């Protein structure tokens, strides 16, 4: 009972964060914020998708691959910010 509630919290939190980061991107045009927005958006969908699986708690390996993609997007934006000219 607790676990789906936590998943819901995480999903909602990720979507909210994604929206805020999108706003920051529109205002500052800094692609770092776009990356965070996309990453948290992906994570929100990813988390919500786990509710469809059986409660094995192992999770599908895809869950972790998708999560890794989200974080690679952030990593790419950080690298771009530092090594690719301005912002």
């Amino acid at each position, binding site marked *: 009972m*607790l*676990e789906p509630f*936590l*998943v819901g*919290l*995480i999903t*909602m*939190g*990720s979507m*909210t*964060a994604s929206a*805020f980061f999108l*706003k*920051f991107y529109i205002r500052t045009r800094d692609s770092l914020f776009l990356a965070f927005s996309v990453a948290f958006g992906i994570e929100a969908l990813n988390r919500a998708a786990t509710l469809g699986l059986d409660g094995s*708690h*192992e999770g599908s*390996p895809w869950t*972790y*691959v998708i*999560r*890794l993609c989200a*974080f*690679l997007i*952030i*990593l790419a934006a*950080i690298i771009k910010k530092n090594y690719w000219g301005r912002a």
Partner: protein
Amino acid sequence: MAPVVYMLGTLVTLACGIFLLRGYFRGRKRLLLWSGLCFLALAVSNLLVFVDLVIFPEVDLYRWRLSFAAVGMMLLVFGLIWEGE
């Protein structure tokens, strides 16, 4: 293969947390404090996935993994609403 994926996730979130907290101690903008703590909590959550599935497969840490991630997201949302202007 899978353990590498789990650890990479941990490292990225840990790095983000460290950057943000370092930035907070420099400029004292609270948004960086909350978001830094969020990423640290996410890093713990990611680390627990590794611990759960690789090191102690007989123990189920699912609730702990979720709890840390949930706390992290709540901190971030709180920080964004309060300080994000």
